């Protein structure tokens, strides 16, 4: 017979990653379900993905650009700079909050069927990605409006999308695992998201941070993600601070590794805890 499965306590399944590949169909289907359900009973559907970042952008432009009179990146229009930061930020925050609530939301699946649990939080990030694509459309529209042409740097954009994905899934997995055990963590996420919006350079350029603090500031992985996005979109107007980018990337990768590790550790007992 083709496949022999051995079930033993504490067995670190050697074929976990192979299983993950085998269950990729489930990943597509769950992602598709989340997207379908999200837009099924909403009146304006995808418009939500437009309205939220757009209004935040307007507010930030007024508060940081007009009232506080913070400088933009080079000669780039302030709203454009804010929106280029808003995109990865919204992707990150929706991804993080959806992923961390995903296991609890799919409790009935967890307790009744086996599949690599990693699929559930990762599939929800796809929903955030769909929202991201929709609001990316507005960015394009705004660039047309401001007659702003991106430089050659724009080809690196997909790499930074992956970076944003890693930055959200790492902490997402960790918090998901904790959330199953201790439900207190569902209160932590909205706080992190709200707090992070002001700590990360969303409404302002990271160039306003004093030079000696920039490396330290880059410990926040979102700093790297947002700077990278601005560099790609605004072209030469936003200079890339390479040491900071490296630090941010390292932190994001560390969190990914840490998140997966914690997740795998608690995974076996999810069905008993949930």
């Amino acid at each position, binding site marked *: *017979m*083709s*496949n*022999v*499965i*051995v*079930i*033993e*306590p*504490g*067995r670190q399944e050697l074929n976990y990653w192979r299983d993950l590949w085998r*269950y990729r*169909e*489930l990943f*597509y*289907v*769950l992602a598709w*379900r989340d997207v*379908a*359900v999200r837009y*099924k*009973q909403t009146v304006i559907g995808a418009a939500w993905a437009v309205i939220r970042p757009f209004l935040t952008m307007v507010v930030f432009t007024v508060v940081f650009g007009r009232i506080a009179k913070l400088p933009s990146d080079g000669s780039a229009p302030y709203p454009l700079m804010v929106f280029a930061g808003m995109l990865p930020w919204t992707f990150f925050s929706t991804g993080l909050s959806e992923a961390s609530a995903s296991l609890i939301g*799919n409790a*009935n*699946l*967890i*307790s*009744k*069927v*086996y*599949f690599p649990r990693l699929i559930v939080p990762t599939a929800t990030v796809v929903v955030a990605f769909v929202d991201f694509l929709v609001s990316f459309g507005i960015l394009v529209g705004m660039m047309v409006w401001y007659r702003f042409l991106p430089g050659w740097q724009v080809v690196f954009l997909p790499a930074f999308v992956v970076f944003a994905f890693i930055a959200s899934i790492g902490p997402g997995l960790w918090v998901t695992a904790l959330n199953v*055990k*201790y439900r207190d963590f569902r209160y932590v996420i909205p706080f992190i998201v709200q707090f992070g919006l002001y700590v990360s350079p969303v409404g302002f350029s990271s160039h306003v941070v004093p030079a000696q603090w920039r490396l330290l500031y880059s410990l926040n992985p979102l700093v790297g993600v947002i700077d990278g996005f601005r560099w790609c979109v605004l072209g030469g107007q936003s200079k890339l601070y390479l040491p900071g980018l490296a630090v941010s990337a390292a932190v994001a990768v560390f969190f990914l590794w840490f998140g997966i590790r914690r997740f795998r*550790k*608690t995974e*076996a*007992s999810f*069905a*008993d*805890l949930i």
Partner: protein
Amino acid sequence: MPPPVISVERLSKRYLVGHRAERGGSSTYTALRDVMGRELRNAVRKAADVVRGRQVVQGDAVEEFWALNDVSFEVQEGEVLGIIGRNGAGKSTLLKILSRITEPTAGRVTLRGRVASLLEVGTGFHPELTGRENIYLNGAILGMSRAEIRKKFDEIVAFAEVEKFLDTPVKRYSSGMYVRLAFAVAAHLEPEILVVDEVLAVGDAEFQKKCLGKMDEVSRRDGRTVLVVSHNMGLVTSLCRGALWLDRGVMREQGTAEHVVGRYLARSAQGQEHLIRLDDRERPSFVRDDRLRCVALEWVSSLPLRHGEPVKARLHFKVRAPVSDVSAMIGFNSIEGPRVLTYHMDGGKASRHDFGCPGEYSVDLDIDAMILGPHHYSLDVGFRSGNIHLLDFIRDWTQLEVVAGPETPAEIAHAAPHASTGVRLVGSWSWEEPSGELEVVASGPQNLREAGARRRA
């Protein structure tokens, strides 16, 4: 002989359960100091557990509970194995381990082949999605590829009989349609090992028959291995070749289905208790009202119940909030499945009762003579308010044996408990002596009597 498809070796599963420590004496009031002390100790313990990454358990005292204890067995290819036992015997835990949902604490399971588990009908169905979408969703969850589902799509739809509603969200489906669709997807899985938990307890009788046929076909024609957990002994004996009896996590008996079911029924009838607690039983999902909960059933008359003898049963229940027009029901199901006898209070407001304040109450059922023939039965207990509002319902929760009474004819007594002897009623018969030749007259007893009277005169 080929290696067994499933081999389970010394399998154990432990759960940790928390308890509130009992306080001695009268505990009607608690000092704030005690509460604070206890909460502080708990908080420290929980914090320590969090740091060490252990499971956090609510309560003061942590107790180990072995849901499965040192269970070993093997299943050969193409075998249909029934798993029986009372509630809490570890059946579901066993299925969960076999389907890799939860890890065992000790022991080892070797599975040779793809496993599909059906622990619930319609796992992952999303109410907002249409029937068509849910077929794909559910299929993927159960481990089918999209190509596989597409190939079987028409078959699934035909089996479920929902062609017309394919593009309707399933939240608008009747519960029957919902169950049919869910089972149809599961029935078209093609795993080497199928693990099923009592899903057949739902759906109408005709559909149940269809499901049984499908399962039989799966094992017989395709040589697949099936594991079924069921409380329905008739189903186990008719569907399974072998059976396994679990009792409080330990394997009591393994062998042919007839043998194990026989032993199980004999045992559960022997160990009948006068007071059976019902408050900890699982309620079906359609019980939504929690104003009234049945706490226990007490047999006031002696056990075992004897055919033809009077019986007195008492239902203890707790009223949590005012509820009016309450009626109670006790139903007897034959071990083959269907309800055979119901004692109810319907048809008249007289016997119903209003409860204005919370508290513990009881209601008695007096039966002049047990009309059920000697056999094994299971019980349903229910409470209603008015004619439609269901308050509480507990289904199939205990095995009950009715034995032959002094008046029961010998051949009936011998037929039981292997065959159902039905409901045996004493009708009101009367003997008439014809004092001459029987005249053929127009039908009806009145005419017959008149004819007799005429002849006598």
